């Protein structure tokens, strides 16, 4: 059994929390005491049924205002799969929260209100999903009960969305007409929409394939920690502890250490008492090399046949996440895998109006702004292009005055 991580994009009024509540409720993932707490609560739908949205609203302020402020994580499983939902808020002022939730998702559910169709926020959400490189998208056209379960309404929205998907570069898009409130096509197929021949949402989530790159070419292993017991019997023991971020490594593979450029080959792969012959993307292991070379946290081991970019001047997409605007005269910190070094934003190339997707040319970069920048780092980064390799192409910016994470970077190209 594997794990599927997905986000839900849509705003309060689209019934996003209700949809998640419905998935949990109908898949019997709500436990008895949570259900009791739900029934005790005095928030009810107009028809007196339980308001399932309460299941995802965690913080007091959210319950008071009936909105989702932060990313809430929910867990459920069926016999086929385990699911982790990052429930993110849809309002434009919470763009950074959506970016945060999207960074770890394999799939995105985009909610569209059947009465409204493709609107500004649909464009925004789709753009963000594309920007963050989520490969699979499920468009749920919700509130079908409010439009008499009309096939025409559904067809029109699908056609509109296809145009949008092409514009923002989303390739794998699935469409489902649903009513989260009534449960149509969420877990069970709807009796009200016999014209819809596809699967229910849950069935799709259970069976959809998520591709991971396990190629030797993209083998990347950021070193987190060096294990050196320095005891009498383990005097010469030196193991590099980390997690394979992409691709795969085998014993005897020739590897290069970056940014230093030293070569060696793998003598052993370890995990406590086990010695797996191969370590692939996602595995945390300890790697031993045949030669004794100077390696420390912040270095990355890669397959010698295919090296990432190594550069100090990098073009990247930036999402600004702090209330204090970007200051191009200021020195920030950049964290990429286990490496932290100083950096400066050298140039703002353009910003994107995320509601219209038009490029704008201005130097100010405020909370929730997204655009293309050029960044200069104090030490070289060994990175892949985000579109080729998410795991080695994402980075964050930290404001060293506050220590807060102020920016998310998708590295796009090394600048000559």
């Amino acid at each position, binding site marked *: *059994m*594997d*794990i599927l991580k997905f986000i839900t994009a849509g705003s309060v009024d689209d019934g996003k929390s209700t949809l998640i509540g419905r998935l949990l409720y109908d898949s019997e993932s709500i*436990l*008895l*005491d*949570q259900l009791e*707490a739900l029934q005790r609560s005095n928030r009810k739908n107009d028809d007196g049924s339980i308001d399932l949205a309460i299941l995802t*609203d*965690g*913080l*007091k*302020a959210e*319950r008071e205002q009936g909105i989702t402020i*932060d*990313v*809430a*994580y*929910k*867990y459920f*499983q069926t016999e086929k799969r385990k699911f*982790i939902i990052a429930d993110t808020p849809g309002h434009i002022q919470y763009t*950074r*929260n959506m*970016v*945060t939730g999207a*960074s*770890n998702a394999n799939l995105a559910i985009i909610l569209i209100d059947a009465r409204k169709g493709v609107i500004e926020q649909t464009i925004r959400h789709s753009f963000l999903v594309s920007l963050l490189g989520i490969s699979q998208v499920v468009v749920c056209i919700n509130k079908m009960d409010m439009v008499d379960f009309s096939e025409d309404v559904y067809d029109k929205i699908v056609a509109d969305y296809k145009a949008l998907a092409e514009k923002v570069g989303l390739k794998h898009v699935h469409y489902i007409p649903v009513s989260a409130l009534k449960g149509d096509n969420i877990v069970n197929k709807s009796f009200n929409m016999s014209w819809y021949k596809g699967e229910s949402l849950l069935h799709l989530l259970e069976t959809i394939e998520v591709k991971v790159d*396990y190629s030797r070419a993209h083998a990347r292993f950021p070193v*987190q*920690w060096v*294990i*050196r*017991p320095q005891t009498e019997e*383990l005097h010469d*023991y030196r193991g590099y*502890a*980390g*997690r394979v971020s992409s691709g795969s490594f085998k014993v005897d593979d020739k590897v290069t250490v970056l940014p230093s450029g030293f070569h060696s080959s793998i003598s052993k792969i370890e995990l*406590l008492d086990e010695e797996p*012959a*191969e370590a*692939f993307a*996602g*595995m*945390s292991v300890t790697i031993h090399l045949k030669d004794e070379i100077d390696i420390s946290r912040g270095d990355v081991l890669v397959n010698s046949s295919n090296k990432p970019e190594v550069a100090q001047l990098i073009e990247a997409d930036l999402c600004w*996440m702090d209330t204090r605007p970007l200051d191009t005269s200021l020195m920030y910190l950049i*964290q990429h*895998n*286990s490496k932290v070094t100083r950096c400066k934003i050298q140039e703002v190339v353009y910003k994107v109006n995320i509601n219209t997707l038009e490029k704008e040319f201005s130097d100010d970069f405020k909370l929730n702004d997204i655009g293309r920048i050029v960044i200069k780092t104090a030490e070289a980064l060994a990175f892949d292009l985000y579109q080729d390799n*998410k*795991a080695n192409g*994402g*980075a*964050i910016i*930290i404001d060293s005055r506050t*220590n*807060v*994470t102020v920016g*998310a970077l998708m590295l796009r190209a090394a600048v000559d």
Partner: protein
Amino acid sequence: MKHQLDYLDELEAEAIYILREVAGQFEKPALLFSGGKDSITLVRLAEKAFRPGKFPFPLVHIDTGHNFAETIEYRDAMMKRIGEKLIVGYVQDSIDEGKVVEQKGKNASRNALQTVTLLDTIAKYQFDACIGGARRDEEKARAKERIFSVRDEFGQWDPKRQRPELWNIFNGKIHKGENVRVFPISNWTELDVWNYIRREKIELPTIYFAHEREVITRNGQLMAASPFLNMDEQDVVEKRNVRFRTVGDMTCTAAVESYAFQIDDIIDEISASRISERGARMDDKVSEAAMEDRKKGGYF
């Protein structure tokens, strides 16, 4: 070779990754050990992350003085086996120093008092990161907490000012006096923990398994009869077959009637059970925001 991580392997790999990030990013980390199954799981994960080296942190136990005897026995035997350092912070010391006052009344518990002892212990040893076994599926407020959760110098969690946490990049930068709570098994569910314990053949304190015990029924829940529980003539002590699903101290942890003597029985029981784990914790029943309020105040 099949390139698919089973979900337990994936959760394990993520937790090991997080533990190694703590080692790499902090000067004085600590692992908060309660004797419960979640922190026992953390110890196993730390062995996977750092052996054959030593743990780059000590274990810290906040001792309310109202422990199940079985928990302390287990702790001491485990410490002997793993050969790491243990630091104990005593709630009794905080009481003796006048920093906290023992609660009164029938439902008195030292659960709330341990926050003070925890914060004092963190300050005394200047820990900059404390690893804990909390999981997001336990409770609504926890569902929103980051894996690296920054606490200010008063130990407070501010849910509205959490740092964005993207990809697998954890920002552990803090100012002096602040510390970070780190939750490596955030993404595990109760069932995941049990399945992992079974797979790894991890030994647990015996109170997790069904046994005969003297209990009283209070607020609809079974509480272990003990000198720490304020009892009166209305409390009827009876012998029942019970086990504990979580292990807090004796005044705040309720038992469930059970005949699950083996781990397989427990997993069957949980899979079938319709009562979530924290449902057996009196401390969460106070109000809908009980956990959120305690976390803001510096609780685990």
